[in-house]
C-alpha cells in the first residue's frame, strides 16, 4: 500500500508553512526530504505521522502503518538499553529485540542504563527502536544526527534491508546518507502567505 500525500497544506503555530505539497511513496522506496532550516520538514513529518491535523489536503495509507522517529528518542535514562527496546517491542506487539540490537551494534551495551550512553549511542538506540515496531513506513526526522561514519553506514544498511523487505522510508535530512533514493526538495512548496490567508479558519473571516 502506498503512502499518498496530496495537495497538503500544513501550518505551524497558526501560520501556514508548506502548501500544495504532494507525493507518493511506494513500498520498497525511500524518499529524502530536503530544504533549508525552518521550511517545515518537521511539521510535515508530524502531520504525516498523524500527530497534528493538516490545514487542507489528504494523507492516505498512513493510519497505523507509521513508525515515527523525531529529534527526541523517547529513551528512559534509568532503564537499560535492552529494557528500553523491549518495551517498544511489546507495545508494538512485534518480535524479539536481538536483531535490532545487532543491527546497530548495541549488543555490548544492552545492559547499560540508557542515560549513560554517549550522544551517538543514544541515537543508535533510538534508531534500533524502528526495527522492533514492525511498521512498514518509517518517518524519520534527521536520523543521523550525532552518528559517526560507521553508524551512518549501519543506518543505511538498516534502511536498505527495510526497503528490500517491502517497507518504505521518508527521511528529512541535511546531510548525505549514502542512500540511493529519490530526493524531494520542499522549498518550492513554501506557503505563499498572501495567497494562503485562508489557512486559518479564523482569519478567513477578515478576508
Amino acid at each position, binding site marked *: 500500500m502506498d503512502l499518498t500525500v496530496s495537495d497538503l497544506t500544513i501550518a505551524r*503555530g497558526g501560520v501556514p508553512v508548506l502548501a500544495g505539497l504532494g507525493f507518493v511513496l511506494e513500498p520498497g522506496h525511500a524518499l529524502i526530504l530536503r530544504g533549508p532550516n525552518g521550511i517545515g520538514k518537521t511539521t510535515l513529518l508530524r502531520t504525516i505521522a498523524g500527530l497534528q491535523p493538516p490545514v487542507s489536503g489528504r494523507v492516505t495509507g498512513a493510519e497505523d502503518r507509521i513508525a515515527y522517529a523525531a529529534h527526541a528518542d523517547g529513551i528512559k535514562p534509568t532503564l537499560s538499553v535492552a529494557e528500553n527496546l523491549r518495551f517498544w517491542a511489546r507495545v508494538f506487539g512485534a518480535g524479539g529485540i536481538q536483531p535490532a540490537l545487532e543491527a546497530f551494534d548495541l549488543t555490548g551495551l544492552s545492559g547499560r542504563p540508557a542515560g549513560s550512553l554517549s550522544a551517538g549511542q543514544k541515537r543508535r538506540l533510538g534508531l534500533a527502536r524502528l526495527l522492533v515496531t514492525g511498521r512498514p513506513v518509517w518517518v524519520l526526522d534527521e536520523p543521523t544526527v550525532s552518528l559517526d561514519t560507521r553508524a551512518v553506514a549501519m543506518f543505511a544498511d538498516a534502511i536498505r534491508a527495510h526497503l528490500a523487505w517491502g517497507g518504505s522510508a521518508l527521511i528529512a535530512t541535511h546531510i548525505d546518507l549514502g542512500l540511493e533514493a529519490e530526493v524531494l526538495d520542499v522549498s518550492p512548496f513554501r506557503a505563499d502567505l498572501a495567497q494562503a490567508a485562508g489557512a486559518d479558519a*479564523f*482569519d478567513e*473571516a477578515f478576508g
Partner: protein
Amino acid sequence: MTQPAMNSSLWSYANPRKFLATTERLMPFLWTAALICLVTGLVWGFFFTPDDYRQGSTVKIIYLHVPSALMAINAWMMMLVASLIWLVRRHHVSALAARAAGPVGAVMTVIALVTGAIWGQPMWGTWWAWDPRLTSFLILFLFYLGYIALWEAIEDPDTAADLTGVLCLVGSVFALLSRYAVNFWNQGLHQGASLSMDAEENVADVFYLPLLVCIAGFVLLFIALVFYRTGTEIRARRIRALQARERAGA
C-alpha cells in the same frame, strides 16, 4: 467567504467580522442601558428604601450582593454553553466569548464574596463562616482562577480554546458535585443561614422592585462587558495572525 446559506441563521454571528460590526452598533445602547439600570436601582435602593427592622441599614447591601451572586453563577453557565458551542461547532467567536466572560465572572464572584463578608460582620459577628453557600462560592472562585490561568498559560489560541473548553465542562460537573458535597458536609452546623433574611418573609415590594432593577443592571453590564471584551479578544487574535504573517513574510 462565508457560505450564503449561513447568513440567515444565528450562527452567522459567529463570523468575527460580522460580530464586530454588529456589536459596534449595539455597544452604545448596551452601555447606556446598563448604566441607567445600575444607577437607578442603586440610587433607589440606597436612598429611597427603608431600613429593615432587624438588619437595620445593612439590608441595602442586598442590591449589590444578590445581583452579583446571580451573575457569578450565570457567567459560568454562559461560559459552559459557549465552550460547548466551540467544542461542537468550532466557532472561534464562541471560544473567545467564553474567555472574555471568565474575568467578568470572577469579579462578580469576588463582589458577592466581599459584600457577603462585609454583611456577615454585623449580622453573624464574623467575616467568614464555612456556610455551604459561601463555601461553594469560594470553590467557584477557584474554578474561575484555574480557568483564567489556563487561558493565560497556553500560547496557541486554538489549543487554549480546546483545553479550557474541556476544563469548563469537567469543572462544571465537579462544581455541581462540590455544591452537594458542601451541603452535606456542613449540614448540622448550619449557623449562618438562620440569621440571614428569609426571602418570603422579608423581601417586601419596597426591597423587591429596586432589587429587580439592580439585577437587570448587572445583567446588562455583564452582556455589555462580554460583548466588548469578546471584540477585544477577536482583535487580539487578529493581531496575532497578522504579526505571524508579517514575521513569516520577512
